[in-house]
């Protein structure tokens, strides 16, 4: 069996995001592989190391050139080869799931690992939409996963707690913190990764027509009062804070 793992290159959580002409401008921002995707890459490798009969682990990225770096990271971590559908056009997750579904079928993947939430578009939709296009079940927010034959078992977060599950491949699994601790690529593996295949696919072959337009991006900062209270006298500070919350902010009775 083959595993398809989805990756993207996103601004680091601490990076300053700028807006230019009503669009997000990543120029100068530190970019990294999305941490939630990294869990997916790591989990694919661990499933293979645990003895599951996995022939190939393939990383897929769809988007601008910067995503090559996420694919290189995945290759250095240990995936076998990478596919980059390179496009500068921004497509919504439901549209992008067309590419994921077509690649999964062409590559005979029976398990897709995707990040639980994207650190750039804050979207949780790609895994679920891909599962629907393929007619597969999905497990989202997974923090524990085992594969025995074609049976997946594990645990994932739901609205009011967490559930243990059992499902049969093919399936889509999205990641959550706690799933694993991703490995750092070693220097020899980074060197080896340079020889691995990174295929470039033409987006036109996947027939993408987006349905969602981004018309504006802005940084809305809520004006904060920044009222500071001296904490040296604890009783006085506590009383002053409570008075402000009662009488000025009017948030407590």
């Amino acid at each position, binding site marked *: 069996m083959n595993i398809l793992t989805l990756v993207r290159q996103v601004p680091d959580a601490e990076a300053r995001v700028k807006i230019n002409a009503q669009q997000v401008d990543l120029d100068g921002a530190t970019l990294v592989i999305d941490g939630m995707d990294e869990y997916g890459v790591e989990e694919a490798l661990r499933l293979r190391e645990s003895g599951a009969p996995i022939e190939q682990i393939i990383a897929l990225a769809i988007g601008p050139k910067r995503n090559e770096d996420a694919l290189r990271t995945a290759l250095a971590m240990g995936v076998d080869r990478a596919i980059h559908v390179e496009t500068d056009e921004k497509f919504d997750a*439901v549209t992008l799931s067309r590419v994921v579904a077509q690649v999964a079928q062409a590559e005979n993947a029976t398990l897709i690992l995707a990040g639980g939430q994207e650190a750039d578009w804050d979207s949780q939709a790609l895994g679920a939409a891909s599962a629907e296009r393929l007619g597969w079940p999905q497990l989202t927010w997974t923090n524990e996963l085992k594969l025995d034959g074609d049976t997946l078992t594990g645990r994932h977060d739901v609205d009011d707690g967490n559930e243990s599950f059992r499902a049969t491949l093919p399936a889509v699994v999205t990641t959550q913190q706690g799933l694993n601790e991703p490995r750092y690529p070693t220097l020899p593996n980074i060197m080896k990764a340079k020889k691995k295949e990174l295929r470039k696919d033409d987006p036109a072959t996947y027939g993408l027509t987006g349905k969602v337009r981004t018309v504006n991006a802005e940084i809305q900062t809520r004006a904060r009062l920044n009222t500071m*209270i001296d904490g040296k006298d604890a009783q006085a500070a506590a009383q002053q804070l409570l008075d402000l919350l009662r009488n000025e902010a009017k948030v407590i009775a």
Partner: protein
Amino acid sequence: MILIVAEHTAGKLAKATLEMVTAARESGREGPITLLVLGQNVAAVATEAAAVADQVLVADLPGLATYNAEVWAAATTQIAQEGEAHTVIIGGSRSGREYAPRVAVKLDAAYLEDATKLSSNGAALQAQRYTYLARVTETVEADGLVVVTVKPGSFAPAAPAGAAGEQYDVELTLPAPRVEVTGKSVEKSSRVALTEADVIVTGGRGVGSPENFSRYVEALADNLGAGVGATRAVVDAGWRPYAEQVGQTGKTVQPKAYIALGVSGAVQHLSGMGKSKNIIAINKDAEAPIFKVADYGIVGDINEIVPALIEASRK
């Protein structure tokens, strides 16, 4: 019509449902606001729903006793098609955001995810949403048939409008669930749910220990009738259950007051609470990033300030 899938728990309509009704009213889209109630033994929920909707469709079926993404997607799609809905609104909960994309694919609809505002721009439905770990607010739009998820806490809960809507029972053909649930642990709390709380008290590593977390964070929350939150560091350390985690990989909240005790304010945490109406921070480190977003801040020792706060708030 505008189809809204009602969220409900323990036989009660969730606040998120009332927020979705407001979203529908503000969307500028026309047609009756229709609430779809999926579940088993949901008569009481349907009656509550009728108070705020033009009509209520009730699917009270054994196959809907427990949530499953594929079943919910199939049910919602079937009703949307039969009712020729042009707008389908689903809650931005964990479950809502996992089955809504499936509905969008089934209906070949556009999907606007996690909307914090809705309006019409000509024929297009326009939504605002947060991106880049909630650092950016984007406006996105789509034409025609649109599936929307609505971010909890973004819209005011709808008040009843006029006479109660009519209730209709609906039949559904449901697929068999393919994911078997073999165990469930519900993180029960006697306190108000984080996503519904007006006031939240959150503790970070600066609280010092699991014992201090109970002594300070929980005690203050109880005095204020507040929900209890935790940072990822505290959850990772095993002090508190994951259900209390606020932030990128936990819950997103926007209460009237968010009281952060010993929280430094990492970007991942801010992305989950930065839109709170009032932020109150108590931390011994005056340079902690949390103070930059705070309305009220006390630089001081948690061990002295919080007991004083608990004592004073008891009165």
